[in-house]
């Protein structure tokens, strides 16, 4: 429970900071704490605890945003799964892989909002600059958040931390 609670508390503080600083910065100029924490949790906290933590962080973003409830909890869960799947295949521990991965997820999230007709308007020329700034902000902040969550999760149960979080393949023999 400790990593979940600590992640939730850290994400809450990050969200509060973003909410407090946002009036003084250009739109989109601050990172999306929920998305970054979900990605970082995917890298550092596998298993049931990681999934629940990412989902809880998403719920928190739902509460602090004008989005329909459930939207960010869903996208954070998807981001966590993507990070788990990409952790080994893309070697996301390296910043050179993590940064573009985060940028891609940020764009995918914005695309989902456009598809749902929420928030950004695809035909508005002002959407693109906001998206670009937001992608940059997320890309810059993701390594820091990842290290923060990594340090938090290092105290987690070793057995749980070593277990592979997602095993969709059933190829390994059972006995």
């Amino acid at each position: 429970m400790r990593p979940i609670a600590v992640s939730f508390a850290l994400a809450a503080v990050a969200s509060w900071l973003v909410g407090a600083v946002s009036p003084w910065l250009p739109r989109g100029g601050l990172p999306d704490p929920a998305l970054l924490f979900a990605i970082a949790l995917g890298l550092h906290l596998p298993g049931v605890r990681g999934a629940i933590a990412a989902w809880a962080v998403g719920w928190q973003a739902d509460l602090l945003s004008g989005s329909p409830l459930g939207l960010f909890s869903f996208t954070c869960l998807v981001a966590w799964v993507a990070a788990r799947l990409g952790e080994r295949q893309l070697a996301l521990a390296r910043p050179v892989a993590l940064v573009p991965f985060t940028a891609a997820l940020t764009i995918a999230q914005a695309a989902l909002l456009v598809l749902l007709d929420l928030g950004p308007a695809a035909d508005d020329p002002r959407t693109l600059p906001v998206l670009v700034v937001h992608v940059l902000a997320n890309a810059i902040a993701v390594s820091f958040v990842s290290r923060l969550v990594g340090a938090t999760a290092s105290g987690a149960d070793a057995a749980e931390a070593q277990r592979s979080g997602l095993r969709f393949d059933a190829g390994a023999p059972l006995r």
Partner: protein
Amino acid sequence: MPFRAGVAKSDVAPAEFLMRELLERLRVPLLLVLLATLSLIVLASDRRAMARRADERGLLPGILIELAVPVQKALSLPAELARTGWGRYVALLDVRSDNERLRARIAELQEENLQYREALVESGRLQRIAEMRTDFEAPMRPAQVVGQDVSPWFRSVLVDRGAGDGVRSGMPVVTEAGVVGLVTATSPHAGRAMLLLDAQSAVDALVQRSRARGIVRGDGTDRLSFEFFVRGDDVQVGDIVITSGFGGVYPKGLRIGEVVEVEPPGERLLQRAVLRPAVDFGRLEQIFVMLWRGPTLDLLYEGFGDAPERADAQPQGAPGS
């Protein structure tokens, strides 16, 4: 029979082991499916509510919003204390000069006020203005902004007044400067207001000077877009845009913003102007919820059994209707 029993007995352990192993392997995927389904169910129900604009929150989302207010208040307390403490200290430094300046200003304003009163009495309009003022008055509930939107794609604020204070979805939110937005969700002690800047916001409006009519839309940025219906309409930079009351959502005459740019019409059917909002959305702290709901929204909400108490929420000569 003994042979069959023997076979069954020997099969039990591997089957149990198999099942346990399978559950162990599928534990996380099953949890993911469960959590994702739960999120999508809440998202779908919330979207439906938004679509029909009748979204007093259900039990679970209501509890979550209720919890957000004390959490946000607690989180913002240190910054608030530092800000007010610093503000008071700085204010003390200038208090003497401010007092002198304000006394002079009060004297000026009293004189000015007297002149205006005289002029109004002379023209016989004072009574009419007093009547109009009565017509436009609706009970106001002060509220504190406790949370800003953390997503760059949505523009909303969380306030510390909810259904328990008479606040209902569809009620306008204002400050002394002008329109802030609309209450879109409430729980017993908290509410969420969508700002005019939100991409989903649209207000029927008119130019105060020329009475040119159009729609003010948010586009997610810090400016508003004013699309007016007739291409030849007289809209100039510096014009003040107010609510028209035609949409049946906001009372007539509330200030929305000032025209800062009129875009050339080009090929478009509607001409467009850019507005600077009257309200400084970056510095929202204290707002007022008008305990009044326009006829359009009232009709919608009454269908969902959410009629506000008439005495409070529908003053005589409802503005904007």
